[in-house]
């Protein structure tokens, strides 16, 4: 509950006025709906009374009939405005929420980010955010609108019908509504969460089954694994049926409550009319308004059925949004004359809980203009070493000195200006080549096309792009539209654009043919003659391009 309130606050505080406008209109719409039925009932009954009494000529029919038309048209128009305003506010708020989630994820430690990047984790995350889009529309706004409408109806019934009618109608709706809705929320909580969990389980089991079906068939485990997937389907069905059952009962209970309220209004108003305290037309108002008030609870009921799903989503989303700020020093360390560009001393990394070190101890230096090749068997920790040097993960022991100052003393922005790493699998964004490259340039030079082409020439990508739409060539999500080798070289060009003093490349030539591999490495060196370059490679041919070679072993 706390998490949901926190998310509601987070969502609403950025777009408060938009939500208030939406709320005001939704109250207006509900009140008009109740007034329309009440006025129609009064008008018809009063007209009948006037007709019977033979005073039809004296009856002012213009104002009530105009009122009926006004309420009918106004309600439809108000509904339109309310939908537009509240959806607009929700969309704005959800954009903010997505932005906050993104910002939170950027502050997470590197290892946690790596886990979130998997397809399933991303799917889960977007499902969570989607679950929250009903929070304001189906829960918060309808709640306040219901309270306000019931209060307005109470006042109206008190003065227009009888105080007893007002009290009875409010009491039945308030007590019944609170009891039914609370019970719905409480009982639906577990199955709603279970349905969501099973749905994710169905997804995961489907992926597993289809990807591994050959392995599973050979191991004689295909049927067992299939049964597991089918069990997830049955679990989802069971949870969904429980939810439907709760929905059915709460719907029935609410219908009975509104029926009870209307009956009470009919009975109390009718007795008062029989006693001559009020006119039959006034009694009709009570009955019709009581009937119309059922609308206040139906929207809320649908929202409450999703409560369990929303709550789990809110907890997970909030955890990401609340990621604490990354700690980074304020000022850059003072330059030390004569210090090496990069130096490591007895550097060791060991994964938490692992029995063996990923690499190390390693000690080496890198000078400007120098090219250092790192080789070693698979699993020797070469990629982990580069991530450590780039400040993505902390070493278990030992030191990294950047221009003589410890790596951890460098503020994030200065560190990134000083060194750039191109990981083994680098990710591109959907959009044009120019947009992808612009991110690497300083904002004031973001449109420096000449510099972009220079970098693309260096990685031998210029020809390919000239043949297409140049810098305006469009990429799909995650860089779809380029081959693996081209995407890799675009990532290299993006890094080279920054002209970093230290450039680190993880398997830059993997998947490239020999000529392109050679051309790309020499092109990068020519573009950045002063940079210290560290690269990891398996290819023997690449060793010729390095000044020095550091071999690490398991």
């Amino acid at each position: 509950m706390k998490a949901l309130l926190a998310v509601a606050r987070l969502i609403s505080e950025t777009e408060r006025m938009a939500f208030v406008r939406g709320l005001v209109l939704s109250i207006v719409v509900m009140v008009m709906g109740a007034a329309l039925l009440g006025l129609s009932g009064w008008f018809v009954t009063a007209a009948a009374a006037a007709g019977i009494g033979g005073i039809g000529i004296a009856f002012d029919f213009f104002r009530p009939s105009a009122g009926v038309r006004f309420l009918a048209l106004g309600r439809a128009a108000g509904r339109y405005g309310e939908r537009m305003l509240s959806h607009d506010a929700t969309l704005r708020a959800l954009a903010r929420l997505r932005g906050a989630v993104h910002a939170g994820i950027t502050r997470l430690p590197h290892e946690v980010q790596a886990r979130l990047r998997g397809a399933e984790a991303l799917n889960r995350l977007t499902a969570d955010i989607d679950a929250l889009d009903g929070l304001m529309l189906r829960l918060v706004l309808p709640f306040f609108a219901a309270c306000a409408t019931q209060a307005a109806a109470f006042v109206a019934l008190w003065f227009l019908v009888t105080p007893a009618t007002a009290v009875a109608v409010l009491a039945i709706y308030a007590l019944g509504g609170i009891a039914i809705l609370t019970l719905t929320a409480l009982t639906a909580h577990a199955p709603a969460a279970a349905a969501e969990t099973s749905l994710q389980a169905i997804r995961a089991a489907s992926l597993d089954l289809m990807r591994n079906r050959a392995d599973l068939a050979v191991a004689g485990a295909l049927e067992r694994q299939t049964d597991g997937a089918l069990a997830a389907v049955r679990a989802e069905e069971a949870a969904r049926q429980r939810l439907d059952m709760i929905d059915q009962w709460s719907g029935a209970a609410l219908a009975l409550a509104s029926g009870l309220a209307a009956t009470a209004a009919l009975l109390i108003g009718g007795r008062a009319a029989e006693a001559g305290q009020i006119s039959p037309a006034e009694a009709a108002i009570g009955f019709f308004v009581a009937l119309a008030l059922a609308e206040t609870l139906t929207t809320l009921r649908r929202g409450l059925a999703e409560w369990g799903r929303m709550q789990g989503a809110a907890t997970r989303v909030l955890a990401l949004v609340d990621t604490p700020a990354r700690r980074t020093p304020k000022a850059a360390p003072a330059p030390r004359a004569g210090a090496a560009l990069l130096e490591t001393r007895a550097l060791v990394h060991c994964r938490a809980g692992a029995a063996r070190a990923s690499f190390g101890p390693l000690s080496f230096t890198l000078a400007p203009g120098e090219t250092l090749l790192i080789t070693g068997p698979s699993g020797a920790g070469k990629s982990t070493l580069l991530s450590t040097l780039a400040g993505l993960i902390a070493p278990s022991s030992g030191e990294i000195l950047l221009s003589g100052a410890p790596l951890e003393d460098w503020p994030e922005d200065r560190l990134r200006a000083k060194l750039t790493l191109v990981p083994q699998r680098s990710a591109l964004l959907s959009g044009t080549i120019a947009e992808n490259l612009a991110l690497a340039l300083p904002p004031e030079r973001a449109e420096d096309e000449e510099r972009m082409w220079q970098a693309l020439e260096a990685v031998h990508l210029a020809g390919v792009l000239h043949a297409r739409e140049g810098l305006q060539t469009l990429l799909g999500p995650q860089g779809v539209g380029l081959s693996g080798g081209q995407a890799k070289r675009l990532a290299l060009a993006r890094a080279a654009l920054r002209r970093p003093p230290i450039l680190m490349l993880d398997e830059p030539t993997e998947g490239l043919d020999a000529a392109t591999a050679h051309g790309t490495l020499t092109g990068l060196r020519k573009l950045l003659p002063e940079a210290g370059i560290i690269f990891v490679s398996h290819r023997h041919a690449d060793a010729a391009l390095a000044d020095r070679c550091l071999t690490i072993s398991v």
Partner: protein
Amino acid sequence: MTKTDSPTSSAKAELARLVAPVAGRLRLAGLLAAVSELLWAAQAALVALAVGGLLEAPVLLPIWEASAGFLALMALRTGLDAAAQGLASRAATRLVATERQALLRAAARLDARASGLTPAELAALAGEKLALLGPFAARYSPAMMRSRIVPLALIAITLPFSWIAVLIFLIALPLIPIFMALIGIAAQEASERQMVQIGSLNGALVDRIAAVTDLRLIGAETRAGAELANVFERLRARTMKVLAVAFLSSTVLELFSALGVALVAIYVGFNLLGEIPWGSWGGPLSPEAGIFLLMIAPTVFQPMRDLSAAWHDRASALAVATELSAAKETLAREGTLLGYGTPATPPAPAVLSWQGLSLRPAPSAAAIRFAEGQIAPGEAVALSGPSGAGKTTLLAALAGLIRPDAGVIRWGETALDDESADALRAAMGWLPQAPQFIAAPLAEAITLGRDGDLAAALKAAQAEDVIAALPEGLATPLGDIGGGVSGGEARRLMLARAHHARASLILADEPTADLDAETAQAVIAGLMALRAKGAALLIASHDPTVIAACDRVITLEPGGHP
């Protein structure tokens, strides 16, 4: 395939076919709901009689009797509604679960070379997409039934009282679908134009999260965040344009139904006052009749309103039905692997031989013919040949993972077919070219539920230090792409799996591809250790070190055996 084009007749037919098994229950649910809605007329009559009695003697129905009757009918209607809803929702969940199970069963046994349906597409279809059939069945179908019965029945009830009221209904009701269709077409077009962008509200976020490390490394974290806000703002503006048209269609509906009700109310009022004496049969309406008409007027429009609220459910269900039928077609076309993948007792070691084999490497590719060949127990054989000669295809066929177009594969005297496949595979170990693990703790991903000595298998495959470097050792969850282990480490774990299976024939596909020399050497040693324990090896490879380590080579000719 996912494009939501305008509902074609084939999509409608497909959806009807999907719903057919539960159609009877849905019809019954719709019928119950319609009866319940029509009972409102009885409630209205009670109230009308009671209020009429307040206006004028004689009192036809005392107020407390009317109240009691009203409440009793309400309870009856509530029961009917609950029964209808229960029927419809149970039918809907059953429908979704049945389709999911059929889909997963078919996909699990899909032929190994099949490519028409990716795992991600299957997961999306079996997960959130099939779920969209539920709301369609539970809400749209019963609403459709009600909209066919209730308005006409209520109009028939109205006719004896007033032809004007009937006229109002008859004008307002058909106008609703006409205007909605017009606006609906506009909305459809608008949303199709924007579909790509709207879908990418999440896509834009996912793209940035997938690239979060890269963005940090090029110092673009803050700028990417700011840029994301701009993308969201553009998407919001576009989405609102689509919603504006979509909401307009429901507003038109509300407007017409509200106007219909208001006109009836005003007509009845004026008739009772004597201002409009015509429109009813033989004199003005009685007060009771007036109140009754006023009360049933909104119910005439209610089924239409519910139907339009569920319109979106129908659109999504049509899209899902189209996609599901395409997926089923793909699954049927691409065929199944042999056998069922159940545990079985392995046969004694014997010669594996094949004659007259003809195999297609991909469902649409031309068939490759293979020369006959065999592997004796304990033999190490390399399978070489240029890429495209069918090395991987032959291995998969020998394991019964793809169905040959022609030819026979034998284990001793036993022919490989659906009946024998599970038992024969129990004697085989399988090392695929791209190692993958099920999303489970590592221990389970290696044993795959079989008994055996895991520690010894890990030792034999030199995989103990792979486990030692993992944060939770054997309990480490792998999955997706075997996150956390390198290519060489994954191969060693696959070797451990082969050791653990105590297979008498190991089928390995390019076990040293993309590995550095040192790791490749370790993998070859692991394979030879399997052989030392008595297993026969068939290794597809063009790595000279692998070929040198084997007893003999089967070379596949490019373009197949003449």
